[in-house]
């Protein structure tokens, strides 16, 4: 009889431990879904052979009126939970329609000049960039479109 009681207590203890551990795993839910409008316009994985080398690159179009540090926190926490793998995740947030790639199937190109000329088109809109590197999660954004100041917010782990 005592053995059965002991086994029952042990099972209940283990269940509680397992339950508490499961609760610590971050998972997206309806509660974490951001209460504002956004569109994921790119969600791509790099084609590295090893999973550990892969990067996920996302582009999100965010309603300009929803652009705030608090909303960015909600958005990035939600996306980080929704896409836990791979460990390297970048999410670019744009608020200007002409900066959003069209849904082409064609590949894109990239150019970099050593001295790209100044352009007024580089200013006047909000942007943000979320970066996850393992356990470290940060995001950068420009709080004021009229100056070039960049704010960095650490969501998890160490700042970088």
């Amino acid at each position, binding site marked *: 009889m005592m053995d059965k009681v002991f086994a029952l207590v042990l099972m209940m203890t283990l269940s509680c431990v397992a339950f508490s551990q499961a609760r610590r795993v971050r998972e997206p839910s309806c509660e974490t879904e951001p209460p504002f409008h956004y569109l994921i316009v790119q969600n791509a994985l790099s084609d*590295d052979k090893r999973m550990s080398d892969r990067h996920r690159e996302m582009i999100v179009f965010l309603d300009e009126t929803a652009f705030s540090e608090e909303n960015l926190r909600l958005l990035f926490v939600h996306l980080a939970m929704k896409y836990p793998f791979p460990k390297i995740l970048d999410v670019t947030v744009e608020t200007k329609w002409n900066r959003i*790639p069209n849904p082409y199937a064609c590949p*894109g*190109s990239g*150019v*970099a*000049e050593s001295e790209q000329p100044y352009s007024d088109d580089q200013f006047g809109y909000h942007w943000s960039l979320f970066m996850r590197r393992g356990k470290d999660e940060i995001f*950068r954004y420009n709080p004021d479109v009229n100056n070039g100041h960049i704010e960095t917010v650490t969501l998890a782990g160490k700042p970088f």
Partner: protein
Amino acid sequence: LGTSTPSFGYTNEYKIYSSVTGKEITTLSDTGEKTKTSVYMNGSVIAEMGFDPGVYHTVQFKHTDPVSGVEAETNVSGTGSNSEGNRTFEAFGAEIPSYSEASAEVPSYQHGGSVLNPEHGCEVNGGPVRCDRLGIWLSGLGIPVVGGVIIQETTISKANYLKLNNEDELANIFANRGGIFEKHGNEMWFVMSYSEEAGISAVELGSRAKGTDKSQASRLLTKAQTSISQDCINALKKLGVWDRVQNLLKTEKLYDVDTIQNEPASHYFANLAAKGLDVGTYFDSLHRDAYTVRGKGNKTGIYYRSSNVNLPSEPDLRLHETTHLAYPTVLPAGQTTYLDEILAKALNLEQQAGLFGRNKESWSDAVSRYFNNKCDPREEQGGWQRAIIDAGGVK
């Protein structure tokens, strides 16, 4: 080269040869005293009598395996006459120590080297090589080596400054002289004169290296060729692309526009260049030192004119452009991405304000400033500000 080589003293000695066998019988010192007499049997030395003047005489019997070349020495009591007891030689005559340590003392040039530490112990691609030979080899590659160190060519910039106190002074000097301005914190300075002089910096070659270790000399050579600062390595690791950058530095395609300038630009830049342009005309229209292109039918790589800039020996510029090939890893579909902008944001590079708050530098300028300053973290937010004003910069 010579200064990296140990100096040696020389002592004369005299040898007496047998008129019958032609073999060396006795060795005399420079003062005429007998120092060694050899005993032969069937053409091989079987014993040596040593003379240490004024102290004692010794007799050593030598036993040589004619096939392997292994030598053993015993004294008159039949025991090993030295601490090693025998000597083994490798194919080229260098002595192989009988102990198993990974390093050995620096051997003498006069008596050949040890395979565990050939001469000074430099290596190339894992193979032992004398450091003075390595120096000659590096020199042949155009890398100057003097006194055992790799000499890197570099440029030392010098400028004389005039501090400007207000916008009127700036407008006045700009109207009358034009030129380059710099902003240091809240202060504005006009560059009165600017010059660049050739200079050198040195990277010391390893004087000794363990035989089983990776090539110290090769590491130093790599360091000299790339000169990637620790700040840059840290920054690229945080960005998650350091491994990619390292691989790209070995594999990336560098296009010298001087050699392809007459070819159609569309063969290299797809639809980035207008139809009918050749590579040289298109590249020159950009007015840039380097141009990195990726994806969508383009020939991915870094373009430059060797007549303008020697990209392979410009580590800051090359690392800048190579990082563009590594980040971002995936390009958005169907559009052209400006790689400087996305890299600057990821590296936390603010666009610095120009003089008196006018204009901002471009994203490309921000990234160039960062890499040209060896990824100094102070080049991120705040800190040192620099703006170069051209004719359109102040109105």
